[in-house]
């Protein structure tokens, strides 16, 4: 009994399996933040389930001392759907990669988002296939040279957040392996949201795609390349937070705050505004900084129908069913 009142810590969420990621892999940091956050959610440990597909990232459930399923490539989203629909009492976390979720698993992902089933999706995006040793993925930047694209890729990558919004996602966010605090906050908000919470996490694979995110993490340049949105706060970035974003009609523009000191006309972040969210998801295409944080969050239809076993007069009902409308006796 005193078990129950025992306060959970990150330690409680560490499994006894030794971790098989490459030393230095960004996955370690994400695992750590997850182990930090879950104990803070006030949910009994046994009610967490981690569901993953196949990939380096998808190995994560083995390292969490919770219930978990390490399934088949691309299907974690579909498997988690069946689990959550029948067990709404559980806190279900989908652990997936850019290949797992967006290549082979793309269809299940967009349908999960459309149905808005109440699960949390953590997409470890390293823009590469790690486990299979370095082929390009649907999020690999154009012209990336990989084992399977010796001359550079030829196809435009998915803009993950735009795709999620297009599919009807009700919670869309982005964070990064290196941003411990930010990642923790995002994970908590994802959990708090009822409905499918889609979180893209940039993760460095230093073996097959090292430095893919340096422009967002490298101290020297990052401040000009990333913009962290905060609810009800103006969009500001830059070396000394000297740059802001304002909307000219529907067109975002950079304003130099050292010149235009009046911040009142800056874009104030409102994560419930779908159109604004869509504009934000296009930022990188428009040569604007990459957006991190909760880009969109709005409660939608909740498709979890608690179907607890109602035993009352079931036998009568089933016998009536068996008899049907036109029975006869001999």
């Amino acid at each position: 009994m005193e078990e129950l009142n025992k306060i959970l810590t990150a330690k409680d969420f560490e499994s006894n399996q030794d971790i098989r990621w490459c030393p230095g892999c960004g996955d370690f940091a994400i695992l750590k933040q997850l182990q930090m956050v879950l104990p803070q959610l006030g949910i009994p440990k046994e009610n967490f389930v981690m569901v993953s597909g196949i990939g380096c990232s998808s190995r994560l459930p083995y390292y969490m001392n919770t219930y978990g399923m390490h399934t088949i490539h691309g299907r974690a989203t579909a498997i988690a759907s069946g689990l959550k629909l029948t067990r709404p009492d559980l806190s279900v976390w989908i652990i997936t990669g850019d290949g797992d979720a967006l290549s082979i698993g793309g269809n299940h992902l967009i349908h999960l988002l459309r149905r808005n089933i109440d699960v949390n999706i953590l997409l470890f995006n390293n823009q590469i296939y790690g486990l299979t040793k370095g082929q390009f993925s649907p999020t690999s930047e154009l012209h990336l040279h990989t084992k399977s694209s010796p001359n550079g890729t030829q196809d435009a990558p998915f803009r993950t957040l735009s795709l999620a919004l297009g599919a009807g996602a009700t919670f869309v966010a982005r964070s990064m392996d290196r941003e411990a605090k930010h990642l923790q906050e995002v994970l908590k908000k994802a959990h708090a949201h009822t409905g499918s919470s889609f979180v893209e996490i940039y993760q460095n694979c230093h073996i097959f795609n090292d430095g893919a995110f340096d422009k967002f993490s490298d101290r020297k340049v990052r401040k000009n390349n990333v913009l962290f949105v905060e609810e009800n706060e103006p969009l500001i970035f830059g070396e000394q937070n000297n740059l802001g974003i304002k909307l000219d009609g529907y067109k975002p523009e950079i304003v130099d705050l050292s010149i235009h000191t009046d911040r009142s006309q800056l874009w104030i972040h409102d994560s419930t505004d779908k159109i604004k969210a869509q504009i934000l998801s296009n930022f990188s295409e428009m040569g604007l900084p990459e957006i991190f944080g909760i880009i969109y969050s709005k409660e939608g239809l909740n498709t979890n129908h608690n179907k607890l076993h109602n035993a009352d007069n079931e036998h009568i009902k089933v016998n009536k069913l068996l008899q049907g409308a036109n029975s006869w006796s001999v």
Partner: protein
Amino acid sequence: MKEEIIREKVVIKFAGDSGDGIQLTGTQFANNTALHGYDLVTFPDFPAEIRAPQGTVAGVSGYQMHFGSVEIDTPGDICDVLVVMNAAALKNNVRYINKHTIIIADSSGFDSKNLKLSGYGIEVNPLVDIKEKVKEVFEVDVTKLTSIALEQSPIDAKDKDRCKNMFILGLIFWLYERDLDDTIKYLQDKFAKKEAIREANILALQKGFHYGEITELFHHHYKVNQAKLLKGNYRSINGNEAVSMALICASVKAKLPLYYGTYPITPASDILHFLAKKENDFALKVFQAEDEIAAISSAIGASFGGSLAVCGTSGPGMALKTEAIGLAISMELPLVVIDVQRAGPSTGMPTKTEQADLLQAVYGRNGEAPLPVFAPATPADCFDMTYAACKIALEHMTPVIILSDLFLANGTEPWLYPSIENLKPIQHKIITEVIDNTYLPYQRDENLVRSWVLPGTKNLEHRLGGLEKQDVTGNVSYDGENHQEMIRLRAAKIQKIADFIPLQEIDLGMEEADIAIVGWGSTYGSIRTVTKDLLAKNKSVAHIHIKYLFPFPSNLGTLLKKFKKVIVPEINNGQLVKLIRQEYFIDAIAFNQIKGQPINSSDLKLEIEKYL
């Protein structure tokens, strides 16, 4: 009062445009037949297209029924009475008539327009040409007679025309000495809110009946005595209904919620439709997924969560599920996979029956991935075998495949339905605690079955996966010796199920006969019919029908070896026959007929006689 002729059994078929309400007419006559205590088997056959062009052969819808005072096993090969509403219907069914057949034709369906559409062409009059091929042809201008009958009715011409089928039904009711009460009651309910339509239909029905009485057309009518069925409560049922009800019963009996994850596909969709209607009555979740892969994947998730998880499909969908079935085998989770087979390969003929998915079910997965495969023999048997599949899945922690087919799914027969109390108990493997809280997911009981721990259970957190597992602990393992042992264990666990299924019995005939006719699935009726005929002629034959196809019943080999010859009729190119040859080293002979229909009994009989 016309002369009365006594018949032991009768095959009657209604055929017409899919717009003519043939299926309704058929079901009404079938229900009435059942209620009168006859034994019967029905076989509706729908056109491939939703609404193929009126009057064309492609648009013909049929409802065939075989009933009698004796046991009935098949819908019958040849019609005693064939009712055709137009020329196309006749053309489409000439292969089901012979010189004993009586044809009742709506002459208005043979006007030049219909002759053209049917492909006969306007030069010929098929009703004349057909005469010497059959016993009698009765031409009745149903259209005209119906419209006359409904002169007074306020409804418009189009609706009046729609009453034709009731006129015909009335006429046939008279022919077989039935009364109209049930059908009238049915019409009253169906059109409760539409008085005019209701009255018109009832009137047409009655007029048809009277027409039989008064007309000079028929020289006599037919009487069939009641069948001596086992005492008890009956209803008529088709295979898809039986499957659906068995799933609900198993879930109630096991006290586990039922989860049905599926994607629509002919001929399995009706299971989805049936269960969707019951979602509010039971602890039941129905999920129409985005495809078959998501359907089975979601079912695996539901199974991990503690539901009786089921997914139903047909051939093409089955092909898509193979990878996920492998995962369920590796995770050793309970799962029921229903394959309502249809004619392949590929999309094939979605509205025709076949039993060519057997080897796919037994072998069609990457790696060594054994699982039990069951197959019902009749529509009602779909209930028993589905229930059995659920029981084995839950008690042995394994996916199970059920092989039904289109003929079983849509065909109906009287069913001595059970009550939930009389069904075998189901003991699932769920545990909620272990000694000193160290849970070993792959520790096995005496039947090599592991336990089932549901998320939410305190202290028993564990992970399942598709990578090879260390024996007992379930931790990931790449050790070669362990891998070989796990493959052995998974296989042995499935083999052990042979101890939990009934021994193989002989359906008809005696042990040590010269010939054993060995079948599986929906060929049951045809084989039984043939065996009866031959036994009646004192031929030394027996009928053995295998419902448990993997693992085989433990006595099957010894049983089969007692016969001089083993002949295996299948609606495929020879699949069960391969399993028997390789498993028991018996030189079994294949008889294959693959025409999208039940095997023709007379063809089968000829074949068997070759070996007598």
